[in-house]
C-alpha cells in the first residue's frame, strides 16, 4: 500500500484571475483536458458545441461554458471550484470571474490559495485589472504569483513583446509583497507552454506552467515557527474508560507543537506542558499546520472555545484595538461607527468601526485619504475596537491568526474580510 504513488501526493490550491477575454477559461480547460480530468460526456458535449460553431479545433473554453452562460443571464456567480490531479499533485482551482464582483470573488478565491495565476493578454499588455489582480494576490498573502502572458500566438511568439510586459510587471510588483514571481509566455488556445513545451518559443528557457504547478515548493508557505493553536472544541467523553479526559480540539494555525513541551494558554496566561497529541485514535509526537488534532495538557486549566494555546516564547499580540485592511463584500456599505459581529480564529466577538483611515484605489494603489466611503468591492484601512481582546499576528506573518470576517448582525451576512496589519 505504501508504494502507491497516489497515497503520497500533496495538494496545491490556486486561483485564476483574468477575464474571459484573457483566455482564462481556455487555460483552465487546457489544464483539465491535458491532465485528463474531463469525462467523456463533458468532452463530447464540448466537441459537439465546437462543431456547431464551425471551429475546426475543440474550443476548450466551452468546458466552463455553463458558468459563462449563467453570467450572461446576469446571475452573480462567485467562485467555482474545480479539481484535477496529475501523478505528482492534486490541484484545487478557485476559478474567479473577472469582471463581476471581482474584489469579492477574487478575495474569496485568494484567501485559501498557495498560488495565483494572473493572465495577461500579450496583445494588450498590462491592463488596469492586471494591477488589481496582482494587488489582491499580494494583499491576501498568496506566496506565489505566476503571470501567464497569454495569446503569444497572436503576437508571432515575439520575445520582445514578452520581455516588455515582464519588465512592466516587475516594476509594478516592487510595490507589492509577493515572495515569488514567475513569468511564462503561453498560448492557452494552442497549448504552448501550458502542459507541453512550446517549440515556437526557443528563446524561453523557463518551465511550462504545468511543470511549475507540479513542482513549486510550497512546504515553506505555512508558518512553522510561531506556535498557535486556537481551541475549537473541548472534548470530554465522560465515559468510564475516559473518565478524566479533557482534550482540546483544533487545527494548528502555526508552529510545531511537541509532546512534553511547555505551552501558554491565552487569555488566562496559565502555563502547562503538552501531555498528548492525537489525530483520531492515533497518538502522535508532534503536530503542525494545518493538522487537526486533539491536545491534552499536564495540568487542569480552564480552557474553552476561542482560547489559544501558544508557545511560551513567541506570543501573539493581544489587543482590543486592531488595524485591518478591509475588503467590503456587501451591497450595504460600511457604516462608520457601526457595530458588527466578528469572527477571528475560533473566537467570536463584536466590534465597532472606530475610524476609516483611507480607501485604496486598487487600480493605482493610491491611498484616497479623503474618501472614506467603503462600499461593495472596496478595500480600505480601518480601526476596529473589539468587545474582547483578540490574540493575533499580523496577516503577513500568519494568514490563519491574522484574518477575520465581519458579519452584519441584522442580516447575518458576511460583509467583509479583514487582514490585520
Amino acid at each position, binding site marked *: 500500500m505504501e508504494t502507491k504513488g497516489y497515497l503520497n501526493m500533496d495538494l496545491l490550491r490556486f486561483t485564476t484571475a483574468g477575464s474571459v477575454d484573457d483566455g482564462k477559461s481556455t487555460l483552465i480547460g487546457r489544464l483539465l483536458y491535458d491532465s485528463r480530468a474531463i469525462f467523456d460526456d463533458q468532452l463530447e458535449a464540448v466537441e459537439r458545441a465546437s462543431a456547431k460553431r464551425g471551429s475546426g479545433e475543440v474550443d476548450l473554453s466551452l468546458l466552463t461554458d455553463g458558468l459563462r452562460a449563467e453570467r450572461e443571464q446576469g446571475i452573480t456567480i*462567485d467562485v467555482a471550484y474545480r479539481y484535477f490531479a496529475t501523478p505528482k499533485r492534486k490541484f*484545487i482551482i478557485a476559478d474567479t470571474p473577472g469582471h463581476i464582483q471581482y474584489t469579492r470573488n477574487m478575495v474569496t478565491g485568494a484567501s485559501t490559495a498557495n498560488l495565483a495565476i494572473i493572465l495577461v493578454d500579450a496583445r494588450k499588455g498590462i491592463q488596469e485589472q492586471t494591477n488589481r489582480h496582482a494587488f489582491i494576490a499580494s494583499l491576501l498573502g498568496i506566496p506565489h504569483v505566476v503571470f501567464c502572458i497569454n495569446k503569444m500566438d497572436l503576437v508571432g511568439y515575439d520575445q520582445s513583446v514578452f520581455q516588455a510586459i515582464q519588465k512592466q510587471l516587475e516594476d509594478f510588483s516592487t510595490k507589492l509583497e509577493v515572495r515569488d514571481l514567475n513569468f511564462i509566455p503561453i498560448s492557452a488556445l494552442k497549448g504552448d507552454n501550458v502542459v507541453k513545451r512550446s517549440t515556437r518559443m526557443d528563446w524561453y528557457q523557463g518551465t511550462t506552467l504545468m511543470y511549475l504547478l507540479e513542482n513549486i515548493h510550497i512546504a515553506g508557505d505555512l508558518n512553522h515557527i510561531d506556535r498557535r493553536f486556537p481551541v475549537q472544541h473541548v472534548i470530554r467523553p465522560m465515559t468510564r474508560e475516559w473518565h478524566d479526559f479533557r482534550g482540546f480540539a483544533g487545527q494548528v494555525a502555526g508552529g510545531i507543537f511537541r509532546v512534553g513541551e511547555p505551552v501558554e494558554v491565552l487569555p488566562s496566561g496559565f502555563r502547562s506542558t503538552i501531555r498528548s497529541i492525537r489525530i483520531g485514535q492515533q497518538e502522535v509526537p508532534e503536530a503542525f499546520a494545518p493538522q487537526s488534532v486533539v491536545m491534552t495538557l499536564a495540568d487542569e486549566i480552564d480552557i474553552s472555545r476561542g482560547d489559544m494555546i501558544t508557545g511560551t516564547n513567541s506570543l501573539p499580540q493581544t489587543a482590543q484595538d486592531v488595524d485591518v485592511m478591509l475588503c467590503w463584500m456587501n451591497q450595504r456599505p460600511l457604516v462608520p461607527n457601526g457595530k458588527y459581529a466578528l469572527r477571528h480564529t475560533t473566537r467570536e466577538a463584536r466590534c465597532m468601526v472606530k475610524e476609516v483611515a483611507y480607501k485604496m484605489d486598487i487600480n493605482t494603489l493610491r491611498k484616497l485619504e479623503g474618501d472614506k466611503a467603503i462600499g461593495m468591492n472596496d478595500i480600505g484601512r480601518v480601526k476596529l475596537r473589539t468587545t474582547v481582546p483578540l490574540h493575533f499576528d499580523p496577516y503577513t506573518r500568519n494568514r490563519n491568526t491574522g484574518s477575520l470576517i465581519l458579519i452584519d448582525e441584522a442580516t447575518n451576512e458576511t460583509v467583509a474580510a479583514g487582514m490585520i496589519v
Partner: protein
Amino acid sequence: MHAYRLTHLKELESESIYILREVAAQFEHPALLFSGGKDSIVCFHLARKAFFPAKVPFPLLHVDTGHNFTETIEFRDRLVEKYGVELLVGSVQKSIDEGKVQEETGFYASRNKLQIATLLEAIETHKIDCAIGGARRDEEKARAKERVFSHRDEFGQWDPKNQRPEIWNLYNGRKRPGEHFRAFPISNWTEMDVWQYILQEQIEIPSIYFSHEREVFLRDGVIYANSPFMRLKPDEKPFTMRVRFRTIGDMSCTGAVDSPASTLEEIIEEVASTRTTERGSRMDDKRSEAAMEDRKKEGYF
C-alpha cells in the same frame, strides 16, 4: 514528502475534521445525513476521528425511500450498533401514507424526488439546525459553487445567487429562527480522493460496491438490479451478470456497472481509467451514472 508537509489525503482529512468540529461548535442540533453510500460513510469516519475519544456528538439521519438495497440497510444497522450512534429515520413511505407526497407511477417511477419533503419534515420534527451531507463540488457544475456552510431559508430553499462569501476557514453559521444550514465537510474531495481515502483508512463499505453476481436487466443502456420495486417492460428480460455499483441510491434509480473490480485497489484503477478513457464503449454507462448522480442530488441536496 517534506517533513512538515501533508499528503493530499491528510490535508483534506484535516480540513474536513475542522469543518465537522465547527458544525458541532456553531449549531445546537446538527445531524449527519446518512444514506449508507460511500460518501456518507467517509463523513461518519471523519466524524469519529474528529471527536475521539468522545462519541460522535450528533445523530445520523437516514431518509429512507423504502426501496433500499438489503445490503445497505444491513450495513447501516451494523454500523449503528457497532459505534452506538443514534439513528433517526425519515420515511418516504410514511410521507406517502400520510398523503404528504404522491407516489410516481409508470416504468420510470422513482422515490428520489419525494425524499425532499421527507427530509425537510425530519429536519423540522427533530429541530435539526444543520444537516451535514457528503456532497462534493466535483460532482456537478452547480455544486462547484456550493458553500461549505450553506444557508437554507425557512422553506429549506437554497438561493445560489445570494450566497454568503466564504473566506479562509472562517465559516459563518449565523441564522434566524426557522432557518437551517447544510454543511458539506468533503466539499473539496473528488470521487478519486474518497476511494483512495477508503483504501488508506481501510474503511468498511457495503459489499455491493464490489463486483458480485446479480440478477439485472437493461433499460436505455443502463444496467439495473432486478427488484420488486421495478416494473419491467414486456421486452425487458432479467439475466445474471457480474456487476458492482459505483454509487448507491435507492434501487429504482441506481445503475450498476459491468465490472470485475473486487478490491479497493481494483476500484481505484477502474475509476482512474474511466477518467482517462476519452471515447470508450462504456459511454452509456458513464452518461447514465452522471444522470443518476443528478437525480440523487435533487433528492438529497
